[in-house]
């Protein structure tokens, strides 16, 4: 395997760290950094390492200095004051050795964290024989224990093909919404308005933690949208539309009468190059077609051809539909 982290990448990482060390991080800086990170997944790690090495030098000074980020106020946790470098190192070392012995006894329960980048769709076999397929920009952790199988969906969407094991229920948690299956296939997606569940096989049970009234059973071909306190939406017997909504598993977007606004949103989930609809009047136009997730250009061309709108593609990060 070729080592992809070269001197150029190391220098770039240091440059971004120096930029972040100043007090005026802007949206443009963020966009530039995101583009750089997207070129190679290892860069995320490189950047974190270099930034941490820079910060590790004087944690005390960092803790004392005002660390509020520039434009709007975002809560930054206060760093605990430290009495000194060497002493802290020793204490941390002692605490860690206790931790190591503890974790050594319960390896199987250690949560495994997974994440997909923008545009990445990943199929992962799990230790119990289940298979999970993660959609673009998703983050989750999987904990396999003796009596339970648990997935915490922090962000995004994943489709689960659950291996049958009646003794170990498979539970997906998304916020306080829970979805439980024994042997079945279903997807869970965190959206702004709630948690969307699509069932492709078998039966799942879903509820909100702390609210028994929301408990309901969903069958293959059902779709439900739950918030923390309510069932927002429920449709049954819509197998073909469930399958269309899960076209991403094959790297496709299936627009079946979706509005242009929804469609653009869908493409923007997968691509650095974002689609913007400049004219609100065309945003509600409905659209059909099957597209590759990584082809926003192809989609924009199709929109141009069928709705007679014009495109502005001069910015490599944007496609404006006007």
């Amino acid at each position, binding site marked *: 395997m070729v080592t992809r982290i070269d001197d150029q990448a190391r220098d770039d990482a240091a440059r971004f760290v120096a930029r*972040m060390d100043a007090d005026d991080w802007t949206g443009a800086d963020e966009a530039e950094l995101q583009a750089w990170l997207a070129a190679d997944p290892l860069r995320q790690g490189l950047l974190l390492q270099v930034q941490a090495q820079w910060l590790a030098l004087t944690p005390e000074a960092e803790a004392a200095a005002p660390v509020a980020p520039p434009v709007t106020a975002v809560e930054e946790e206060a760093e605990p004051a430290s009495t000194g470098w060497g002493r802290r190192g020793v204490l941390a070392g002692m605490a860690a050795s206790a931790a190591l*012995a503890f974790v050594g006894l319960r390896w199987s329960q250690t949560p495994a964290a997974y994440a997909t980048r923008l545009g990445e769709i990943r199929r992962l076999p799990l230790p119990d024989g289940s298979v999970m397929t993660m959609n673009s920009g998703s983050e989750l952790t999987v904990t396999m224990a003796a009596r339970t199988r648990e997935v915490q969906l922090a962000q995004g969407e994943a489709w689960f093909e659950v291996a049958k094991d009646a003794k170990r229920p498979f539970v997906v948690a998304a916020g306080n919404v829970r979805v439980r299956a024994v042997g079945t296939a279903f997807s869970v997606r965190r959206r702004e308005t709630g948690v969307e569940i699509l069932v492709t096989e078998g039966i799942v049970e879903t509820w909100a933690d702390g609210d028994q009234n929301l408990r309901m059973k969903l069958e293959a071909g059902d779709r439900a949208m739950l918030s923390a306190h309510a069932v927002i939406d429920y449709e049954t017997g819509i197998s073909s539309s469930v399958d269309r909504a899960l076209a991403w598993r094959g790297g496709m977007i299936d627009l079946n009468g979706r509005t242009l606004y929804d469609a653009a949103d869908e493409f923007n989930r997968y691509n650095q190059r974002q689609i913007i609809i400049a004219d609100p009047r065309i945003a509600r136009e409905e659209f059909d077609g099957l597209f590759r997730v990584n082809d926003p250009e192809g989609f924009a061309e199709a929109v141009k051809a069928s709705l007679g709108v014009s495109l502005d593609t001069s910015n490599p990060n944007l496609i404006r539909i006007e």
Partner: protein
Amino acid sequence: MREGATPGEADQEFARRRRTALWVAREIVPHEARVRRWLARSRLSPEDVDEVMQEAYCRIAMLPSVDHIDRPLAYMFSITRNLLLRRLKRQQVVVLEAVSEIETWQDETPSPEEQAASRISYERVLAIIGRLPERCRRVVELRKIEGWSQKEIAVHLGMTEKAVEKQVWTGVRAIRDAWSQAEAQSENRMLGADLREARSW
């Protein structure tokens, strides 16, 4: 609809990244040599060790938050262990000895040398700052030792903020190199200590 990164999103990402980096700076960086040494015992080449470390940092970088991690170093070991096992599987030639090493890491207790290692590299880093070119050294000292902001340094030294940032860039590179040299040395020293121990047993 998203129009690239809005200022709010940029800030949130900035803050999240910084929280994670502070956590890594506090919990992982001082012990990185230990993790690397443990990886080196499974017969990985230094390049592979680098890449496993990088991948492990990637995993951490992508976490929405690190608040839930109670035992940072154990967490780091568990990520690297998984990555290492996967890598050994991919290489197909599974060195049995290597796998058994992986299973036994929890027996390690930090030795006084290990505890001292982070201290040594810190002093080394200070020495590196001392050897930086005059202007860069002034900037890095004010930033890292006095805790001034880049803006304050610019006013004080009569430089533009861009120029200060450029000196900081040089400083970041020097410190990064100092850490990796210190890690490599500590790795060698520890491996040497291992061999001596093995003989005396």
